[in-house]
C-alpha cells in the first residue's frame, strides 16, 4: 500500500532528474568549479584571477568528455598563442603598426584554421588566435612585461583547466561514453524501422528524406563523440577502432539501402509489374527479420542474435533467388526486366552482408580485446577551403580596421575593443551563423555590463570576505550558465559569463574606476557589434555563393570516387560526402528548397560514387584470364564511361547527361556481349555483377527524383 502511494511521486522525480535535473547538476558543477578556481587563484596571488575563472566558464560542458577535449586543446592553443605573441613582441615592440598588422594576420590565420577543423581541434585555433591578442595588447605599452604576462596567463589557464576537469570527472559525472553508447544502440533500432518500412514501400518520400538527414547528422555527431570519448574513458579507448569501423560500416549500409530504395521506388512506380512480384518475397523476409529489432536498443547481446539471423538469411538467399528467377523466367520476361530483377537481388544481397558486418562489429563491443579492432579507415572530414578562407579574411579585415581606428584616434579603450573583437571573431568562426553568434554575444555583454556595474559600485563596497563575494556572484553565473546550456541562447550565456568576469570580477587589489569601467564596456559592445556587422557583410557563409560552392564540391566527390587511389577509398568517400552535405545543410538552414536540392545531390553522388567504387573493386579482384584483360572492350567501355561521368558531374547539363547515358548504355552492351570462363552463376559471375552495377548507374541517372531529371526535361523541350 505504501509503495503505491509513493509511485507517482517517484516517477515524477525520476523524469525531472533526467531532464531538468541534469541542467541543475551542471549549473552547480559550474559554480563549484568556478569558485574553487577563483579561491585558489586569489590564494596563490595570480595577477588575473578572472582569467582562470573565464577558463572554467569556457571549458565547462555538461558531458565530461567534452570538457577534457576542450581543456586539452585550450592548453595547446594558449601555449601556441603565447609563443607567437612573445615572438611578435620581440620583433615589433617599437612599432605598433607592424605589431598590429601581424597580429591581424595571425588572428586571421587562426580563424581560418578554426573554420577548417570544425570539431574540438578548432578550439585550439580559436585560442591560439585570441590569446595572442589578449596577452599582447595590454603589454604593448610596456613590452618588457610581456614575457611574464604570457607565463602568468598560461598558469592561470592551467589552474582553471585542472579545477574544471577535476570537478567534472569526480562530482556526479555525466560521461560522454554513456551518451555515445545510448546514441549508438538507439540508432540501429531507428534504422531497422526505417529499412523495414522502406522494403515494404510504406514510407513516404518525406519520411525517407528526414530519415536520411537524421542518419547523416548522427554519423557526424557520433564521430564527434568518439573523438571526445578517447580523452575520457579507457573502456571506450580500447574500442576506438571498432567504433570507427561501426560508423563507417553504418554509412555503407545507409548508402546501400538508399540505392536499393531508389531502385524499388522506380520499379514500384511502374505499377505492379512482374519484377515487383518476383522480388517481393525476399524483401518482405528481410523486413520481417528487422521488425524484431525495430525501435529497440541494440545491445551487444542483441547484435549477436542479429548476426545469427542474418547469417541464416544470407545462406538461404541464393536458393531463394534461383527459385524466384525460375518462376520469373516461365513468364518470359524481357532483357530489361531480368536486369532489374538481378540488380535488385544483388543490392539486397550486398545490403544483408553489409548489415552482417555491422552486426558483427557491434556484437564485438562486448569484448575488451577483439580482432575487429584492427581498422585503418577513419572518418575523414572535408571542409571547402573557401569556408576557411572566408573566416580568415573576415577576421583579418575586422582587426585591421579596428587597429587603424585605434592608432588614428588613440582612444584609451581601443585596446579593449580590439581584444574583444579578436575573441568574438575567433569564437564565431566555428559557428554556421557568425552574425547571429556575435550579436548574441554583444547582447550578453550588455547584460553583463549592467549587472556588473550594479555589483561593482553598489554591492561590492558593502560586503566583506570571500563567502559573501561568492554569494553575490552566484546569481549572475547561474543565469549565464543556464543560458549557455541551451543551444539557441548559447551566445548570450557566453557573452554574459566571459565579459561580466573580464570587467567585474575583483582581483586581489580591487580598483574602483567608473570612468574606465564604462568606457571599456562601451568598447566591448561596440567591438562585438562591428563583428556582427562584418559577419553579415564580409563573405557571409550562410548565403547563396557558399552553398553553391559546397554543392559543386559535393558533385566533385564523384570525380574523387573515380580517380582517387582505391586503398581506403570507400570510407573516406562516404564520410567526406556526408560531411560536405551536413555543412551545406547547416548553412542553408531556413531554406527548405535549397536543403532538398542538396539532399538530392547527395543521394545521386553517394549512389553513383558507391557503384563506381564497387565496379573498381570488382575489376581490381579479377582473376588472371584473357577475358578479363584491361584491353577487353568491356573494360575500355567502363573507362570511357568514367570519363563521361566526370564531365557530367563537373558540369551538369543536357548534352553531358546524354553523353554519359550513351556511355553507360555502351558499357552495358559491351559487357552483355562479352564471354567469361566461369559460368553465368549469380555469385560466381563477375560480368553479371558488373552488369548489375552498370544498370544501377543507368537507373540512377534516369531517376525522376534526381536533380538530373530537370536536365533531361530541358533537352526534350529544346527538341520539340
Amino acid at each position: 500500500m505504501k509503495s503505491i502511494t509513493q509511485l507517482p511521486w517517484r516517477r515524477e522525480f525520476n523524469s525531472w532528474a533526467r531532464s531538468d535535473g541534469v541542467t541543475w547538476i551542471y549549473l552547480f558543477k559550474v559554480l563549484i568549479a568556478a569558485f574553487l578556481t577563483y579561491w585558489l587563484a586569489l590564494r596563490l596571488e595570480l595577477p588575473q584571477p578572472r582569467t582562470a575563472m573565464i577558463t572554467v566558464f569556457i571549458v565547462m560542458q555538461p558531458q565530461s568528455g567534452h570538457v577534457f577535449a576542450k581543456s586539452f586543446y585550450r592548453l595547446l592553443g594558449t601555449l601556441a598563442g603565447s609563443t607567437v605573441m612573445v615572438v611578435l613582441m620581440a620583433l615589433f615592440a617599437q612599432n605598433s603598426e607592424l605589431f598590429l598588422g601581424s597580429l591581424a594576420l595571425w588572428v586571421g590565420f587562426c580563424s581560418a584554421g578554426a573554420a577548417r577543423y570544425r570539431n574540438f581541434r578548432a578550439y585550439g585555433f580559436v585560442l591560439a588566435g585570441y590569446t595572442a591578442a589578449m596577452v599582447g595588447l595590454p603589454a604593448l605599452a610596456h613590452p618588457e612585461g610581456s614575457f611574464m604576462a604570457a607565463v602568468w596567463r598560461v598558469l592561470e589557464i592551467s589552474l582553471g583547466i585542472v579545477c574544471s576537469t577535476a570537478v567534472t570527472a569526480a562530482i556526479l559525472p555525466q560521461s560522454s561514453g554513456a551518451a555515445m553508447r545510448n546514441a549508438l544502440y538507439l540508432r540501429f533500432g531507428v534504422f531497422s524501422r526505417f529499412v523495414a518500412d522502406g522494403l515494404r514501400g510504406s514510407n513516404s518520400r518525406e519520411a525517407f528524406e528526414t530519415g536520411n538527414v537524421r542518419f547523416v547528422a548522427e554519423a557526424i555527431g557520433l564521430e564527434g563523440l568518439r573523438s571526445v570519448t578517447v580523452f575520457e574513458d579507457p573502456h571506450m579507448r580500447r574500442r576506438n577502432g571498432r567504433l570507427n569501423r561501426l560508423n563507417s560500416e553504418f554509412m555503407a549500409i545507409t548508402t546501400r539501402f538508399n540505392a536499393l530504395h531508389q531502385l524499388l521506388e522506380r520499379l514500384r512506380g511502374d505499377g505492379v509489374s512482374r519484377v515487383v512480384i518476383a522480388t517481393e518475397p525476399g524483401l518482405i523476409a528481410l523486413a520481417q527479420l528487422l521488425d524484431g529489432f525495430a525501435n529497440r536498443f541494440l545491445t551487444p547481446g542483441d547484435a549477436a542474435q542479429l548476426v545469427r539471423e542474418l547469417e541464416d538469411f544470407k545462406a538461404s538467399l541464393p536458393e531463394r533467388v534461383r527459385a524466384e528467377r525460375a518462376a520469373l523466367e516461365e513468364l518470359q520476361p524481357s532483357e530489361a526486366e531480368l536486369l532489374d530483377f538481378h540488380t535488385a537481388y544483388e543490392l539486397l544481397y550486398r545490403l544483408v552482408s553489409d548489415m552482417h558486418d555491422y552486426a558483427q562489429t557491434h556484437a564485438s563491443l562486448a569484448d575488451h580485446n577483439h580482432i575487429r579492432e584492427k581498422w585503418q579507415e577513419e572518418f575523414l572530414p572535408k571542409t571547402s577551403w573557401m569556408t576557411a578562407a572566408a573566416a580568415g579574411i573576415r577576421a583579418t579585415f575586422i582587426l585591421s580596421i579596428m587597429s587603424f581606428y585605434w592608432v588614428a584616434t588613440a582612444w584609451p579603450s581601443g585596446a579593449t575593443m580590439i581584444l574583444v573583437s579578436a575573441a568574438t571573431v575567433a569564437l564565431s568562426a566555428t559557428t554556421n551563423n557568425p552574425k547571429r553568434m556575435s550579436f548574441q554575444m554583444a547582447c550578453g555583454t550588455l547584460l553583463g555590463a549592467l549587472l556588473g556595474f550594479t555589483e561593482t559600485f553598489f554591492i561590492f563596497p558593502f560586503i566583506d570576505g570571500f563567502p559573501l563575494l561568492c554569494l553575490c556572484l552566484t546569481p549572475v553565473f547561474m543565469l549565464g550558465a543556464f543560458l549557455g546550456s541551451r543551444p539557441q541562447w548559447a551566445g548570450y550565456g557566453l557573452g554574459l559569463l566571459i565579459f561580466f568576469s573580464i570587467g567585474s570580477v575583483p582581483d586581489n587589489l580591487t580598483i574602483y574606476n567608473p570612468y574606465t569601467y564604462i568606457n571599456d564596456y562601451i568598447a566591448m559592445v561596440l567591438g562585438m557589434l562591428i563583428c556582427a556587422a562584418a559577419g553579415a557583410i564580409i563573405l557571409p557563409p550562410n548565403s547563396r555563393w557558399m552553398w553553391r560552392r559546397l554543392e559543386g564540391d559535393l558533385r566533385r566527390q564523384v570525380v574523387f570516387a573515380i580517380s582517387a587511389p582505391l586503398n581506403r577509398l570507400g570510407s573516406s568517400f562516404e564520410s567526406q560526402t556526408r560531411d560536405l552535405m551536413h555543412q551545406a545543410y547547416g548553412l542553408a538552414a531556413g531554406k527548405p528548397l535549397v536543403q532538398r536540392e542538396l539532399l538530392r545531390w547527395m543521394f545521386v553522388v553517394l549512389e553513383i560514387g558507391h557503384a563506381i567504387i564497387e565496379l573498381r573493386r570488382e575489376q581490381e579482384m579479377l582473376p588472371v584470364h584473357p577475358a578479363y584483360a584491361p584491353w577487353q572492350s568491356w573494360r575500355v567501355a567502363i573507362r570511357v564511361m568514367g570519363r563521361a561521368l566526370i564531365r557530367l558531374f563537373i558540369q551538369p547539363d543536357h548534352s553531358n547527361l546524354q553523353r554519359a547515358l550513351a556511355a553507360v548504355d555502351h558499357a552495358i552492351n559491351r559487357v552483355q556481349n562479352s564471354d567469361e570462363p566461369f559460368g553465368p552463376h549469380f555469385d560466381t559471375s563477375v560480368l553479371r555483377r558488373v552488369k548489375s552495377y552498370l544498370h544501377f548507374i543507368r537507373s540512377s541517372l534516369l531517376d525522376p527524383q534526381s536533380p538530373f531529371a530537370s536536365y533531361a526535361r530541358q533537352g526534350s523541350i529544346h527538341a520539340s
Partner: protein
Amino acid sequence: MPREIAFHGLYMPSVTVLFLIAVVLAWALDRLFSGLDLYRFFWHPALLRLSLFACIFGAMALTVYR
C-alpha cells in the same frame, strides 16, 4: 630537494616540475590499468584516477616541503 628550480632564467617552484612528473606517472598507471581491464572492478573510475594522482603528487611534494 631545492624548493625552486631555475629554467632558462625563469624561477619555478619545484612542485611545478613534480606536478608534471606526477601527471606522466598517473598517465602510465592509467594505461596499465586500462590495458589489464582493471577499471571494471571500481565504482567510479574517474574518482579513482583523481585520487591516485593526488596520492602520487602528494607523496612527491612531501619530499620538498617536510
